[in-house]
């Protein structure tokens, strides 16, 4: 209850036209950097940071955090429209968002994504409001074994979702692990798989890989179908947006589950990318009718988007309460806090309640502003799809190449994107799944670091993963998720065999 009083004070600090205007500016800029692949929220925020040095800390954080919200929303737009994730965390949105848009319902896909994202973010803020003190203490319980268990859980929930052959999934995942290990290894400090090529010492950026695998790969496939001069007959009607809004309550279960996953992954802090993948995996597993997943199932959009945003929002809490950034963007904002003369850490809540609760209040308002702004852009974005592919295709290639260059200002990344594009094309032609590769690239090196740190801590004993209730519980849950499809399959086959045996027996007797 005390927190609610503080929150109302927070609203008192931020409710002015100046601040609302800053929010709108921040969100608009954020949508812009989110839509351009490669630019992304961390780069956008660090570009804007010098401008805030002369502002008071509350206005500055409002501007930056609203830019963050905007970028999170913008990142989903290109995933849905062009199969190019603008942010790493919106990769999972491409799985169903792009097929739905391609099928002629871009407005529905975008609206679903934006509204569920907004709901996810609001749930994250409500959690911060109510549980801030408890969460800060809980996050301290996490060390390397617990991190490894969380990553293991994310892998386990996602690993068996593919409809493809398990061996193809394995090949794809191993390739992802190999790509993730390029560059400098945190534990030994040595370079791995760089082959003395200077361009490789920075490792292979995850963004480069997804732009190539998804964006270029998709373009190659589309071009193969031949030159077409007509766009997708996308309906762009305001009524469509309204209809989708009414449709949303039907997915309350998916939304609730994804929110919990998102908040959990945001606090721990495994981050929004892991959250969106895990949430997609869980939604698909628990769906009774899986046939539409991957072909434009609305739950396949709602689940990753909700989790992405609730994780993105929750990730700001560890930053404020402990001084540990939960995401790259949070790291930049933390740098900002120091420059504005604030020390991120446990005392910030006590020393500067006006700042902390002003920020939390601005999260409520900022997200509402963001949802309205992005929904207003839906008709505009949706109509882009009506432009013929022969015109929009080359533009997308140009955007991807410039985005690839911007990731690290490196020309060699453009060639890497082309390489990944070819790989993506081959994968799709041979029916290999891309998702396991992407997941392994995102979480592979983190999981490896956590595992090896745990081994250093325990002196090489695996018992450290069962050393306390928290880590044991996480590992057990992971194992259950990993093995349950196998168990279901076994039970299923046994049952079928029993069913099969009976009629066959009769048949044989008759013969």
């Amino acid at each position: 209850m005390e927190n609610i009083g503080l929150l109302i004070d927070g609203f008192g600090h931020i409710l002015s036209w100046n601040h609302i205007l800053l929010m709108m500016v921040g969100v608009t800029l954020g949508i812009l950097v989110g839509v351009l692949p490669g630019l992304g929220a961390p780069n956008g925020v660090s570009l804007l940071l010098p401008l805030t040095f002369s502002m008071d800390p509350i206005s500055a954080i409002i501007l930056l955090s609203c830019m963050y919200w905007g970028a999170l929303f913008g990142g989903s737009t290109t995933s849905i429209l062009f199969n190019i994730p603008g942010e790493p965390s919106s990769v999972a949105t491409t799985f169903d968002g792009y097929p739905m848009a391609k099928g002629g319902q871009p407005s529905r896909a975008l609206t679903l994504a934006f509204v569920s994202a907004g709901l996810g973010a609001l749930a994250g803020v409500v959690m911060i409001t109510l549980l801030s003190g408890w969460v800060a203490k809980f996050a301290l319980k996490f060390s390397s074994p617990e991190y490894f268990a969380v990553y293991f859980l994310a892998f386990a929930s996602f690993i068996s979702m593919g409809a493809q052959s398990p061996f193809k999934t394995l090949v794809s995942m191993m390739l992802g692990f190999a790509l993730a290990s390029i560059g400098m290894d945190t534990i030994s400090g040595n370079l791995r798989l760089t082959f003395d090529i200077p361009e490789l010492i920075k490792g292979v950026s995850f963004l480069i890989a997804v732009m190539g695998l998804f964006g270029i790969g998709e373009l190659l496939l589309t071009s193969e179908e031949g030159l077409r001069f007509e766009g997708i007959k996308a309906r762009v009607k305001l009524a469509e947006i309204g209809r989708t809004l009414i449709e949303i309550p039907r997915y309350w279960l998916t939304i609730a589950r994804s929110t919990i996953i998102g908040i959990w992954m945001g606090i721990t802090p495994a981050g929004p990318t892991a959250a969106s993948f895990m949430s997609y995996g869980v939604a698909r597993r628990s769906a009774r009718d899986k046939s539409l997943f991957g072909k434009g199932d609305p739950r396949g959009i709602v689940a990753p988007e909700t989790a992405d945003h609730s994780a993105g929002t929750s990730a700001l809490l560890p930053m404020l309460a402990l001084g540990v950034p939960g995401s790259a963007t949070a790291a930049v904002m933390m740098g900002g806090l120091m420059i504005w003369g604030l020390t991120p850490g446990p005392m910030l809540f006590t020393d500067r309640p006006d700042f902390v609760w002003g920020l939390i209040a601005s999260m409520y308002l900022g997200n509402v502003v963001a949802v309205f702004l992005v929904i207003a852009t839906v008709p505009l974005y949706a109509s882009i799809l009506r432009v013929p592919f022969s015109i929009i295709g080359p533009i997308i290639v140009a955007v991807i190449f410039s985005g690839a260059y911007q990731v690290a200002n490196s020309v060699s990344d453009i060639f890497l994107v082309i390489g990944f594009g070819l790989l993506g094309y081959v994968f799709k032609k041979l029916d290999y799944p891309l998702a396991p590769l992407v997941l392994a690239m995102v979480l592979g090196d983190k999981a490896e670091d956590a595992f090896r740190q745990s081994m250093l801590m325990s002196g090489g004993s695996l018992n450290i993963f069962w050393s306390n209730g928290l880590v044991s519980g996480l590992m057990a849950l992971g194992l259950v998720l990993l093995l349950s499809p196998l168990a279901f399959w076994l039970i299923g086959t046994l049952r079928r065999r029993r069913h099969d045996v009976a009629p066959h027996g009769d048949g044989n007797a008759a013969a």
Partner: protein
Amino acid sequence: MKKSVSIACMIAAALGVAAPAAAFEPNRPVEFVVTAGPGGGTDIFARTIQAIIAKYELMKSPVVVTNKGSAGGAEGFVYTAGYKGDAHKLAFGTNNAYLLPVRAKVPYKAEDLTPVAALASDEFVLWVNGKADYATAADFVAKAKEGGLKIGGSQSKDVDQILTSMINDATGAKISYIPFKSGGEAAVQLAGEHIDANVNNPSENLGQWQADMVKPLCVFKSVKLSSEAKVAGDKGWGDIPTCKEAGIPIDNYSMPRTVWLPGGVEPDVVQFYADVLRKVSETPEWAKYLADTSQSPVYLSGEELKSAVEVDGAAVSEVLKREGWLAN
């Protein structure tokens, strides 16, 4: 405000006098290559300098900051070293500029970079959990001699692990080292009692110190820190004893914040940037930055800097050699 204007005038006057002597003047945008990710210590170092240069108009050409922090900063140094003779690329780093090529097979050598200036020196403090029952560094060392204690730090075979090795060597302790991605992670691991100590820079642990989650035992410096301010309750940086008097015989260990040009640049280019950076180091904004991040003021350039780099490089290489971490 008035004060800063008058300082700006003074600097402008100084620049006017110095201008005919310095032949070089950048004529296109200057790239500041930060050899760390956005938000880290090196990033704030470079961006603070960028802001001060812009405020006092110390350079006519605009400044562009890029982050190239992968592979422990090697990405940025390789990139900078690749622009041999280019007077418009400056790399910002720490002592990692000359340590990386010694400990890892990175595709550049320390000689491929020209030292310009060192502007600050970040200190190292031995921190333990706030609830730990060590009162002094000597207590900690006594426990550490029994073995089983863990120090966590940022990266592998870097400043934190080198210092841990030096503590072991100086006291006969058997402390193991767990590498994390950043000093921030090491700070939280210590607050959560997952590791026994860390050797973070003051600014990396300040927030946790204020909340009594961690406490400092000693600072690796020959004299106490000079800051008077009481930052955590009734304690301030100046109250932390030096490690030498507290029971760990290590005299001085600090990390310079350094600026580098590519190899093969003209001496007047080096002189130009060294002058600009000296002017930066004399501004009140710079003093505020040092105070906010609890770093010590240092300004080194020219021969002074070269010999400091040699001394530091040799001292640290000795540790790397003892541990068998030399890459070549």
